[in-house]
């Protein structure tokens, strides 16, 4: 089943690689570089999944982006990625039901976390 995914990541190479990997798995990927752009897209498009980096340029971080999606529809799949993790960020992410991943990422883990388990 093809998913409509929002990927929020400011690092171009990570954004490119995750997008390629997900597209090769037949998913549809929208990209955003900032939290503000992500919030704007979430308000206009209905995504199945939001994958966001924690640290983003601007005033809105990854947790805020996921919270935004969660408030609209809490049943959607969420993934938080971070290069600088902490137990606090992890517990905040898990409180929203998001999958928490530290970088360097395993692409296959991202894939398995967003695809419905058989």
């Amino acid at each position, binding site marked *: 089943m093809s998913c409509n995914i929002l990927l929020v990541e400011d690092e171009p190479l990570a954004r490119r690689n*995750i997008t390629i*990997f997900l597209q*090769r798995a037949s998913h549809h990927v929208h990209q955003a570089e900032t939290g503000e752009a992500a919030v704007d897209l979430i308000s206009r498009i209905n995504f199945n999944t939001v994958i966001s980096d924690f640290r983003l340029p601007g005033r809105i971080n990854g947790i805020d982006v996921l919270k935004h999606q969660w408030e609209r529809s809490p049943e959607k799949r969420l993934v938080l990625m971070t290069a*600088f993790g*902490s137990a606090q960020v992890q517990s905040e992410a898990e409180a929203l039901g998001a999958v928490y991943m530290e*970088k360097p*990422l395993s692409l296959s883990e991202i894939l398995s976390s967003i695809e419905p388990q058989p």
Partner: protein
Amino acid sequence: MIETLSNLIAPAGFEPHGHCFLWDPALLWLYVSSDSVVALSYYMIPIALFTFVRKRRDLAFNWMFLMFGAFILACGTTHLMGIWTLWKPVYWLDGSIKAMTAAFSFTTAVMLWPLIPKALALPSPRQLEEMNRELQGQIAERKTAVEKLQQSEERFRLLVEGVQDCAIYMLNVEGVVNTWNTGAQRLKGYQAEEIIGKHFSCFYRPEDIQAGKPKKALEAAAAKGQYEDENLRVRKDGSVFWANVLITALYDSAGQLYGFAKLVRNITERKETEQRLRESERLATLGTTAAVFAHEIANPLNGLSTSLQIVGELIHGSSHDPLVEETLEISHQELQRLTALLNDYRSFARPQSVKIQPTNLRQIFDEVLAPAAKHYKECGISLELEFDDNLPLVPVDREKIKQVILNLCKNAVEAMPEGGTLKCKVYQTADRVILEVADTGTGIPAGLDVFQLFKTTKPYGTGLGLSIVEQIVSEHRGTVDYVTELGKGTAFIVSLPLSAMG
């Protein structure tokens, strides 16, 4: 002339005075006895006056007393002449003596008047007595003041003597020690009799003496009144300590320098605390640097890692050359090493604040060991757990202590490449809880400081794991140590206080 004299003594034609009394014996005796007593009395008075004047040599106007004496003596003589003239008519002689008496009397009377204001100016005995009393009072006051001063001096001396924490002593102008207190004895190790008379440069290190520091210190104190220094000083036994030295120049009332007062305190403890503080500041800086570094590394590492994953995905099954897959696998392993190093860095760089909460240590061990159970089995490592059944909740930072246990277990496993037994033990002593993580591995060579940053014996170790352990344990006011034997294994022992931390 002869005739005049004979007329005086034996005059012709005069009748003796007794003739006027008709030689009545009773009247004669009345005259004789009365004149005799008067004359005797008049003679006694000058004798008393002379004696008084002789004995009181400081007597003011003593010549007046002598004048009085002479005048009274003359008066007495006229009475003696009164007896003589009863029987002998020596009236000329009698008259002459009367004339002399008159001269003395008149002179004395005339000289007495100008003397009165002068005599009045002299203090009276009562005044003298009062002055005397006043003087006595002043003397008593002075005596009390001197006593008080002596007492105060004694108290001050005892105070200085009794000060145990500071060396307080005096130097003469040349720098020779001339007093010594208990504090000085304690601090520097010299008895008073050993050091008094010696030059104070013996408290300096040889290189300081060579640099002329003792002399410069006294010169600076003499020039500015006071000189302060913090430096190393030498005890009698040759050991050195950090000293705060205050030298005060002493001047007499004429402004002449007569010596120096020296106050020396041992500040070794403070210096060591400062050094520890600098060390921890240095580590904090290192931590911040590591945090920035870790973040800067993490993103390109992530880019590289995901790129490799995509390459792997792209060529999966399509390449017939096994070298391609092998090279990719090696790259992945190297990336994992880099990731491990990065994760250790992250632990080291995390904020240093400690969040204490009552924690079940057994639960933490389970959380660390359970996910690794499969890996242990593959490596041929068996687990032995020994937990005190009555273990209380321990006030620790849960995440940090988990990191400690994780690092110790990881080290233990890495020390057993051929397999072995990982033994974890937690038990309580009086006021502490002890965590032991032991392996049956290679052991640690003697003389290696395993807690030192970046120190490692493992080919792929980062040298950060045990530094992190030590850092976290010391944040908990605990201790970490180990026992090891080459070829037999190592046991790390962490001791944490059971009381909540301030």
